């Protein structure tokens, strides 16, 4: 199920860190219901795009639209209520909370205010928020870890818990920063099945930063390629693999050669 309005639109966004332009007049659309990958060499600005969309870093110019609404000036804290949730490149679960409590953190934006904050979620086991969090873990095949201290969990499980936590906010747009990095093949398959289930009904759009092109090919239907903070290509995974320019700067050519050419292109 897809409709015409893009779930995410970046319009001429620029972000500078000191003298370095991380994102350079970047515009792109993410189609609603798609599974879009954001790829590019190291330092291309992929994670910066995530930080811009979630409001973690302010932008110098341009606009960010989520579901047609300009959220460029919306505080980072309020963006999750606009339907944007994310996971992190290095797992960032709360080490002093259990797996279940970490997942419950994701419910916060749906249960805020004084009444929500005073919900006795840990007082009796059948509190409805607690039950909902447990059901989400069960759905992801992770219920056996509910009471565990997160630092004791295998890395692949932590990565999936992070996805479940983000999904508790019921986002329309889920940003995943290198979800498959550091996972073995079994863990990657488990992650893919989880994402498959999340995207099943088309209500959630995925935007994924990923280096693993096998993962991108298996999970995503659209690819946007960044280099030096600019969009240099977009299309289906097959089209991107065939794109000569992408091959040149990203996929095949020797690194030294490609780097030289990129520097030449930049100074030109």
């Amino acid at each position, binding site marked *: 199920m897809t409709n015409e309005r893009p779930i995410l639109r970046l319009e001429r966004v620029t972000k500078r860190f000191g003298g370095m332009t991380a994102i350079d007049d970047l515009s792109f659309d993410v189609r609603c219901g798609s599974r879009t990958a954001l790829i590019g060499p190291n330092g291309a600005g992929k994670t910066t795009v995530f930080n811009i969309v*979630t*409001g*973690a870093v302010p932008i110098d110019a341009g606009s960010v639209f989520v579901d047609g609404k300009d959220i460029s000036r919306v505080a*980072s*804290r*309020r*963006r*999750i*209520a606009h339907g944007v949730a*994310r996971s*992190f490149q290095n797992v*960032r679960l*709360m*080490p*002093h*909370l*259990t797996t279940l*409590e970490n997942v*419950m*953190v*994701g419910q*916060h*934006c749906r*249960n*805020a205010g004084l009444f*929500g*904050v*005073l*919900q*006795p*979620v*840990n*007082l009796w086991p059948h509190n409805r*928020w607690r039950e909902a969090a447990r059901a989400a873990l069960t759905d992801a*095949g992770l219920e*056996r*870890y509910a*009471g*565990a*201290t997160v630092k*004791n*969990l*295998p890395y*692949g*499980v932590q990565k999936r818990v992070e996805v479940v*936590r983000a999904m508790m*906010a019921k986002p329309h747009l889920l940003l995943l920063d290198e979800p498959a990095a550091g996972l073995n093949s*079994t863990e990657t*398959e*488990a992650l893919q099945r989880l994402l498959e289930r999340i995207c099943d009904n088309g209500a959630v759009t995925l935007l994924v930063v990923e280096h693993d092109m096998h993962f991108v090919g298996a999970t995503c239907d659209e690819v946007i390629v960044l280099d030096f903070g600019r969009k240099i290509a977009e299309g289906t995974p097959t089209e991107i693999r065939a794109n000569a320019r992408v091959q040149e700067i990203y996929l095949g050519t020797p690194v030294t050669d490609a780097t030289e050419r990129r520097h030449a292109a930049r100074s030109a």
Partner: protein
Amino acid sequence: MSGYLEGVLVLLAVNVVFAYGAFLPVAAGQLNLGLAGFAAIGAYASAFLSNTYGVTPVLAIAVGGIAAGLIALVVAVPVLRTRGIYLALATFALGQIVQATLLNLEVVGGAAGYPVTAFIRLPTIALFAAGVVVVVALLFATRFGIAVTAVHDDERVADLMGLDVRAFQIAAFTLGSIIAGIGGGLYAHHFSFIEAQYFNIGLSITIVLYVLLGGTQTVLGPLIGAVVFTLLPEILRGSANWRYVLFAAAVIVLMALRPQGLVTGEQIRRLLGLDRHGIRQAEIAREPAA
């Protein structure tokens, strides 16, 4: 009950209350080294109410706590803008300001101290202490407990998850100050005499030590810490003045061997059988593909 024993138990109960006053901001990732100042506000405000207006001690103590909380709320907004060591210094300065103000406030005796006529005994104080423990434990069984721990663990992620980080920090700081104020009021109405010099930085640091040594991760930590480290110097009393050396040595040994404090959440979950998978590492390693 001997006077000595009652004195020790009252001090124990008051220290437990103080410890929870320090625990709340620590649980939100903030060190309040001005806690003695808020205890002093509670002590002096409640003593003034019961001395001057004949308010019953229990009510006066509650109002004293609220007074400490109101002042905390006002100063929290600028003070909590600072971070880490600067926050510790700012709260330290806050405690010094309160102490210096009280030293110069003649209406409550100034440097000569302030006698308190109303008197409460151990049962009342123990009830207050138990009440504080129960209220904080209940509070941490709500989403507030999860939110505050999330803010403590990772402010940035907490913010992206929609948590109002500053609001939770201010709430924890203010609630902690109310509790410290109540502790001050209890102290004032049992020992019948208060002086500003008592509420010094040494008191603030001792209270924070109870929490750090007891453990900051669970609501039981401050209770254990306050009990152990109030009673330890009393038990060591036989060794005369060496007890201070032994006490300090015990603190250093504990810090070195168990920096996370005496009790942790993981430990409690294991004891209660909730963290079944946390202990069976082997089982986790054999995680099935499904």
